[in-house]
């Protein structure tokens, strides 16, 4: 059974703190993704990684960075958290080959920045 896990389901941080969100997949997938979900805005891609140590900016990368040192782990970093980064963060993974393979999502991390 495929699995994407995220380190926390709920997180509360203060403005200016450095925040790490961790994602691990056990499917040996090459591609991994970080999204945020906000009401009325859908799923917006922050960053994705198509291989170890490789990363690409998504649609809204400002204020975020990522790290992928191992194939199974993809971290999202908020260097200095701000209140407008309060959101649901979703990690996903998929095989790199072909367009017709679904993405598998983790359960999400609800981040609140005070």
């Amino acid at each position, binding site marked *: 059974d495929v699995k*994407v896990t995220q380190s926390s*389901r709920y997180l509360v941080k203060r403005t200016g703190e450095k925040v790490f969100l961790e994602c691990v997949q056990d499917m040996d997938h*090459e*591609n991994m*993704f970080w*999204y945020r*979900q906000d009401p*009325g*805005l*859908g*799923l*917006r*891609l922050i960053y*994705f990684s*198509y291989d170890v140590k*490789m990363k*690409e900016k*998504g649609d809204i990368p400002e204020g975020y960075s990522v790290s992928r040192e191992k194939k199974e782990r993809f971290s999202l970093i908020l260097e200095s958290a701000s209140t407008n980064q309060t959101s649901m963060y*979703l990690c*996903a993974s*998929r095989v*790199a080959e*072909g*367009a*017709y393979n*679904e*993405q*598998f*999502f*983790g*359960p*999400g991390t*609800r981040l609140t920045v005070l």
Partner: protein
Amino acid sequence: DQQVKQNSPSLSVQEGRISILNCDYTNSMFDYFLWYKKYPAEGPTFLISISSIKDKNEDGRFTVFLNKSAKHLSLHIVPSQPGDSAVYFCAAPAVASGTYKYIFGTGTRLKVLA
């Protein structure tokens, strides 16, 4: 520039009736589409897909229709059940860095009334 659009943010349907969720796209290069379903506090899960070589794909109570000339697809749920209450996202894969990323719509929140 939103390449995948879901213009109805919400929809309420009586139990047993048909639910129709719509999705429009602008990029004629898209040749595959997916629908994801998301419950609160959970990650999205894959529901059904359709290739552009077809105009219909059916899986139990769920059917997706594709009208390429109108760049429009729709998800039909018949009969609707209270457990179908969720947010539904349509998505299309787009080429990125030698692999694919998904372009998601903004989602439609379906509420099935008992």
